[in-house]
């Protein structure tokens, strides 16, 4: 980091602006010279991918908002008009609708990356907590966006989720009435959801700026989980990481385009192509896939308030994670026992997601209950204990040491002691 000196700009206009508002110096410092640990892998690209997704969502959302009408009488038809009559309306809507799923895929991988490599540990606690707020803002935005087409799933999803707040004693019912602006989900509800759905992405953008600012204070974590000791451990962000992230973004966009062009409704629910009907509940209300693990937790608890608290608690526990994990070692590479529990947690999240999509009865209810119990056991009991009980493997002295030692002494017998990488 010591090598970051003020850049010399050749362009006189740039120079003139920069001496008055050092925006070019800032960009150069944060996105050109920013020292990145030289050993980061492709999992580190998902932050950039998530950022690109936010930009795509805001861009498509803006033009869709110019065609959409937030009124219960015409909302459904206005979406159909976008699909049939508006130039490229079908493309923009499918890019936006599938974009929500892609955004969550990128963010969930980004989060599990952080969990695996201990990116939430000191000094990155605030960075991590800002990430939890980003997740919450994304969930709120995605939920309200799903209400806008005013199909059956929109209406009943909105009804079920707003009713969660009625679980709180005394204040619950007034809060729900206030959220609705009436006595059921209706036109005032749709109107305000549209306003908030437009606002929240910009709140999200602000949070992302803070998240990035906090990241650039402590620097990026890396697969070894040890701090960069000097210039020999890092590479400048540009061109090394811009190119690597750029390649990952392109591959991800191909995956995304696969859904948009070949299976645009695969991640949606067919019932949302039925206009909202307040008198008929669909037989099986399912949220979008990215909410399913949390939905399973909600339904696993037989008590209404308890279910709601458990669901919110499942996210709140993430914010407390930097203090729940008592181990000083960041990366799973050097935590042989935690590494196994990490994968159990990952499987648990998938199982909860599957159980959330199934009817809440019989064996699926049992599965959801075991999954919920394990989720909280992992964070609240296992992590605090494991930090004390587990004996971590020895950490390398620096990021470049294993590489340079292995490469530097070929004759001495590099193949005699293979790297103890997992």
């Amino acid at each position, binding site marked *: 980091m010591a090598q970051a000196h003020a850049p010399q700009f050749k362009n006189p206009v740039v120079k003139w602006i920069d001496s008055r508002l050092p925006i070019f110096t800032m960009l150069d410092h944060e996105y050109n010279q920013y020292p990145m640990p030289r050993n980061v892998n492709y999992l580190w690209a998902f932050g950039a991918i998530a950022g690109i997704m936010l930009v795509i969502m805001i861009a498509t959302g803006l033009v869709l908002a110019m065609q959409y009408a937030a009124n219960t009488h015409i909302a459904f038809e206005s979406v159909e008009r976008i699909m049939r009559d508006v130039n490229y309306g079908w493309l923009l809507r499918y890019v936006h609708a599938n974009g929500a799923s892609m955004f969550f895929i990128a963010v969930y991988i980004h989060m599990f990356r952080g969990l695996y490599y201990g990116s939430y540990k000191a000094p990155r606690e605030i960075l991590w907590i800002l990430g939890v707020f980003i997740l919450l803002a994304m969930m709120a935005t995605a939920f309200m966006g799903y209400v806008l087409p005013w199909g059956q799933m929109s209406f*009943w999803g909105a*009804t*079920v989720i707003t009713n969660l707040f009625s679980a709180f004693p005394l204040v619950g019912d007034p809060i729900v009435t206030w959220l609705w*602006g*009436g006595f*059921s989900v209706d036109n005032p509800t749709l109107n305000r959801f549209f306003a908030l759905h437009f606002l929240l992405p910009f709140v999200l953008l602000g949070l992302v700026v803070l998240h990035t600012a906090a990241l650039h204070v402590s620097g990026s974590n890396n697969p070894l989980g040890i701090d960069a000791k000097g210039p020999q451990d890092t590479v400048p962000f540009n061109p090394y990481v811009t190119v690597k992230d750029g390649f990952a973004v392109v591959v991800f966009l191909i995956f995304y385009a696969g859904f948009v062009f070949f299976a645009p409704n695969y991640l949606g629910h067919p019932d949302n192509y039925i206009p909202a009907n*307040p008198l008929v509940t669909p037989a099986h*209300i399912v949220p979008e896939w990215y909410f399913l693990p949390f939905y399973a937790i909600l*339904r696993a608890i037989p008590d209404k*308030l308890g279910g709601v608290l458990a669901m919110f608690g499942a996210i709140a526990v993430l914010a407390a994670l930097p203090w729940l994990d008592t181990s000083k070692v960041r990366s799973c590479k050097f935590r042989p026992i935690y590494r196994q529990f990490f994968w159990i947690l990952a499987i648990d999240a998938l199982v909860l997601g599957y159980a959330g999509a199934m009817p809440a009865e019989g064996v699926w209810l049992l599965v959801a209950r075991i999954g919920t119990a394990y989720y909280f056991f992992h964070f609240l009991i296992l992590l605090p204990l494991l930090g004390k009980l587990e004996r971590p493997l020895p950490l390398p002295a620096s990021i470049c040491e294993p590489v340079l030692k292995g490469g530097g002494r070929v004759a001495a017998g590099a193949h005699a002691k293979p790297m103890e990488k997992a």
Partner: protein
Amino acid sequence: MAQTTHPPGTGGHAASGGEGASRRDFLYLATGAVGAIGVASAVWPFIDSMNPAADTLALASIDVDLAPVQEGQAITVTWRGKPVFVRHRTAKEIEEARTVNLGDLRDPAADDARVKKPEWLIVVGICTHLGCVPLGQKPTDPRGDYDGWFCPCHGSHYDTAGRIRKGPAPANLVVPQYAFTSDTAVRLG
């Protein structure tokens, strides 16, 4: 700041530092309190604007003609944007609702406290769990284990008095405000 909190001994500030500080603390607190109240009162119109508007509140009461509803049948009417279930109960259903031991109920309520005429049960058709519309109005619908309604969303069972018997819902189906205007007509609201 040091200069302002400990001014040189001139004028009214000649008093001891402790006294001056406490007076200043009081002024800070008082200013802060006035500011906070001001902000809170300015914010209230914004919050309250999201509550139901006057036209929404205007209780559109509706009249329902019960004459065409035969024994054993049920109709659904919309009132305040919500479905209201009106069921013409059979003698067997009334009997079932009456013979329940109140101690076994999650939300104890006697059957005659939930109806004005025993053959007519009128409840808001919204599950008290998370607001779905329970099934059981149509003859082909499942009615749950207690012959009343069954909510397909999360599996709550209601009995023939609309009381919660099984499943996650915490309370009975709500009985709306209504009055019989004649033997076969009822006014909701």
